[in-house]
């Protein structure tokens, strides 16, 4: 198939595999409803004629060859047409010349013409115009439509209005706006149809459905009508133009024979007539106004002209409508951005609070789900992969070096670059990742589901059974949809420039907030330090300024007893002694409090220390009590050497052993000190082994409900003078020491049988 061979639709062999190279501009045939004559401009004699002159004009094409126009038109009409061809600029496409009833024809024909170098191409199509004026009134036809279009606010609304107007103008069964994507695939973006027809809205078609030659043609002509897809095309006679010695270029011809593939596809859909008009934005084919009619439908030239005019108006306004819509999306993003930043900036809102709530991170961009990964924790909203899958994804992202300087990366085909994503492509096929920490450990992730998942339910073609043509089911919307589906397998709708930019801007804002929070934490720490210092000062006050008056009370009570002996009476003296005892008790409480506060703060130097030595020290301190109670202090095996603050740990042993001796009413008392290995959760999902020390006794035991209370400061389980008293701060101080070592303490006990205190000294 070369341009110079005498090709014709009828003789050519276009197949599904070569249709992308089909010479659609030189089909060698015309649509059978009209006649095409090619004239030599120099003498206006016919050099080519379509074979259907016999059917429409009652004259064989061969008879017309070499003749002038007077063979078909009256002399005054010949003059009009000759003048028209001489004076009009016709090289850029056909213009309407006149309406006439050719000799031998049964009715009037609209005559349009254009020129190609030495040639004039004159096309004759049946006219429905009745009477005068002969000039087509596009304006009145289109004016109302255009004014109605102005009221649409969204691009889709605008396109819907366009389909309705075209349908009103033409009376066609179905009018669609078909929109191309950047990959030349397309989808039905708007539709107006007869109520009883299935909708094609949101159906997607692969790029191959409208092959490149067809797309190129649509940049050159403003409408294309096939009034009856079943009508046999009429070949040109002769097939090769004798003037140019080449096939006639029919790019601009209204009557250009339709591609076999095209007509078969239409037939397979049950369509009989189709009118298509291109929508062009900035020199690119943006989309098509595609129409279907389910019976043959001829649309006369002047109505087509009106539609064509409408398509041109729409094309001119597309840019504005599309920009406006983009602008509105940007505005929405900006307003959500600002609300989010405002929420984040309030002192008690952490980033994770922004994941949900209103507005949330999901409102910022058109996405299916969003996740915040911060400090290893994952918070999500919308539809996302599982936290484990997100964790793995974050690890992969961190190891990648790609992405901008700010680490922002995005893809609409995640499974192609990250294989494990294949299993969750229905939630996260598209990914927009924004690091919010220098290490890229903390990230914001927006997810988009696979494209197919979002449209399959809306746009899967369902058509009535029709007779499928010779090229098989490929030329059906259902097959087209399947092919498109394959072509977008593993793809999500791409992230637009505006969206990526918005994510970048949000990142900067988040970093500001993070830095702001860090500053706030620093400030709080400073305040906390000041508070702790105040507390220190308070401890000092407690030790002196509280104790001095206390001693005063005590002393004066003592002086009273001394100085007024015999005058107070027994009762007076007893009361004074009670007063002295209470003041002493208050002093010991103050002392305990001071001790406790010193345990929590102040010097804490750990070193490796043999706990046997520590225990020995504690034992010496308790020597008197051990002898007094005749208790047996057992150590089944030597204690290990551990890293600790020895003085404080000595206090732990001392306190626990002292309690064990104190709360024991058995005749044979014993206390056992030892250790055992234990497995504990490590706080990161795993486990670790730790050494648990224990002090066990055969004492009175502690009821289970008090197992927590024993560690509360000044909490006593028994009357003050039972079991030897004490302030009730001992276990609180023990717990503090253990916690300062990073360990924990707990109690196991059976009432009446004994108690075991366990403690660890950190990892």
């Amino acid at each position, binding site marked *: 198939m070369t341009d110079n061979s005498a090709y014709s639709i009828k003789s050519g062999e276009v197949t599904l595999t070569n249709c992308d190279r089909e010479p659609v501009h030189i089909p060698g045939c015309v649509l059978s409803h009209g006649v095409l004559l090619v004239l030599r401009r120099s003498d206006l004699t016919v050099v080519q004629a379509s074979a259907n002159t016999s059917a429409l004009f009652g004259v064989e094409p061969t008879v017309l060859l070499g003749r002038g126009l007077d063979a078909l038109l009256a002399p005054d009409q010949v003059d009009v047409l000759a003048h028209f061809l001489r004076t009009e600029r016709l090289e850029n496409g056909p213009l309407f010349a006149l309406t006439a009833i050719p000799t031998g024809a049964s009715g009037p024909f609209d005559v349009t013409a254009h020129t190609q170098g030495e040639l004039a191409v004159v096309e004759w199509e049946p006219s429905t115009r009745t009477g005068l004026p002969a000039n087509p009134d596009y304006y009145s036809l289109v004016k109302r439509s255009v004014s109605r279009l102005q009221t649409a606010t969204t691009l889709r609304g605008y396109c819907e209005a366009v389909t309705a107007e075209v349908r009103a103008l033409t009376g066609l069964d179905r009018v669609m706006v078909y929109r191309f994507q950047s990959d030349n695939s397309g989808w039905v973006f708007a539709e107006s149809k007869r109520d009883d027809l299935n909708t094609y809205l949101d159906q997607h078609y692969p790029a191959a459905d409208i092959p490149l030659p067809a797309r190129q043609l649509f940049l050159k002509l403003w409408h294309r009508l096939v009034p009856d897809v079943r009508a046999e095309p009429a070949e040109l006679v002769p097939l090769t133009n004798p003037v140019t010695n080449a096939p006639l270029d029919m790019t601009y011809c209204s009557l250009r024979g339709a591609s076999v593939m095209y007509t078969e596809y239409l037939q397979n859909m049950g369509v009989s007539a189709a009118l298509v008009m291109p929508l062009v934005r900035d020199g690119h084919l943006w989309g098509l106004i595609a129409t279907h009619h389910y019976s043959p439908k001829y649309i006369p030239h002047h109505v087509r002209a009106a539609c064509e005019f409408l398509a041109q108006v729409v094309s001119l306004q597309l840019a504005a409508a599309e920009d406006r819509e983009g602008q509105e999306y940007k505005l929405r993003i900006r307003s959500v951005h600002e609300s989010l930043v405002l929420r984040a900036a309030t002192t008690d809102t952490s980033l994770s609070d922004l994941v949900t709530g209103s507005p949330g991170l999901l409102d910022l961009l058109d996405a299916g789900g969003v996740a915040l990964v911060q400090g290893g924790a994952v918070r999500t909203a919308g539809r996302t992969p599982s936290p484990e899958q997100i964790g793995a994804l974050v690890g992969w992202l961190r190891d990648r070096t790609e992405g901008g300087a700010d680490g922002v990366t995005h893809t609409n085909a995640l499974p192609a670059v990250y294989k494990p994503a294949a299993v969750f492509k229905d939630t996260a096929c598209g990914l927009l990742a924004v690091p919010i920490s220098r290490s890229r450990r903390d990230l914001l992730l927006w997810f988009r589901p696979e494209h197919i998942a979002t449209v399959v339910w809306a746009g899967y073609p369902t058509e009535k059974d029709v007779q499928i043509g010779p090229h098989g089911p490929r030329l059906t919307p259902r097959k087209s949809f399947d092919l498109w589906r394959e072509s977008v397998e593993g793809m999500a709708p791409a992230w637009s420039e505006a969206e990526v930019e918005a994510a970048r801007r949000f990142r900067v804002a988040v970093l500001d907030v993070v830095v702001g929070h860090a500053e706030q934490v620093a400030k709080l720490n400073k305040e906390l330090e000041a508070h702790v210092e105040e507390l220190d000062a308070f401890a*000092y006050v407690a*030790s*002196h*300024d509280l*104790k*001095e008056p*206390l*001693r*005063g009370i*005590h*002393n*004066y009570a*003592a*002086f009273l007893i*001394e100085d007024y002996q015999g005058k107070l009476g027994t009762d007076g003296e007893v009361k004074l002694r009670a007063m*002295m005892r209470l*003041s*002493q008790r208050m*002093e010991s409480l103050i002392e305990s409090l001071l001790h406790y506060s010193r345990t929590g703060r102040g010097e804490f130097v750990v070193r490796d220390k043999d706990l046997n030595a520590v225990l020995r020290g504690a034992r010496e301190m308790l020597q008197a009590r051990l002898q007094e109670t005749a208790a047996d202090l057992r150590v089944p095996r030597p204690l290990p050497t551990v890293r600790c603050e020895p003085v404080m740990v000595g206090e732990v042993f001392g306190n626990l052993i002292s309690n064990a001796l104190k709360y024991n009413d058995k005749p044979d008392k014993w206390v056992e000190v030892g250790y055992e290995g234990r497995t504990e959760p490590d706080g990161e999902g795993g486990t670790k082994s730790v050494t648990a020390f224990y002090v066990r006794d055969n004492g009175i035991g502690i009821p289970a409900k008090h197992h927590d209370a024993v560690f509360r400061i000044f909490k006593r389980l028994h009357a003050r003078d039972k079991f030897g008293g004490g302030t009730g701060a001992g276990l609180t101080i023990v717990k503090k020491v253990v916690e300062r070592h990073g360990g924990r303490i707990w109690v196991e006990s059976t009432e009446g049988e004994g108690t075991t205190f366990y403690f660890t000294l950190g990892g």
Partner: protein
Amino acid sequence: MVANRTILLVEDSDADSEATVRALGRCVGSPAVYRCADGDSALTFLRQLDRVDGLASRPAVILLDLNLPGTDGREVLEQIKADDALKHIPVVILTTSAASADVAFCYRHGASGYIVKPVDLAKFAARVQQFHAYWFEAVEPSTA
């Protein structure tokens, strides 16, 4: 036994002062006690004594409280030890504070002893009497 049996007690609390005086009163050969209720009057008293009577009338030992109104006990200690005429008088601290920082400070600045006051009067008296026994019976108080 020595001739000079006077003690200067620098103490703002009447209760503590009385407790101290009572405890000392029970000691053998109960010493004479001068009392100053604040740091400034103590320093004035010491320097005035020095001018009028010379060395002989100076206290054998000073019992000094730390928390004093106006010039603080710590500063009184520093001033005494910085004064060539007074620095040889032993100063024993008698205070409520058991803070290690206070103990360290006082010994660093030349204190001869540090007694923490207990709330129990009997214990208080015992400590004061121990103090007396040490300074007036075991050792010879400074008369230099």
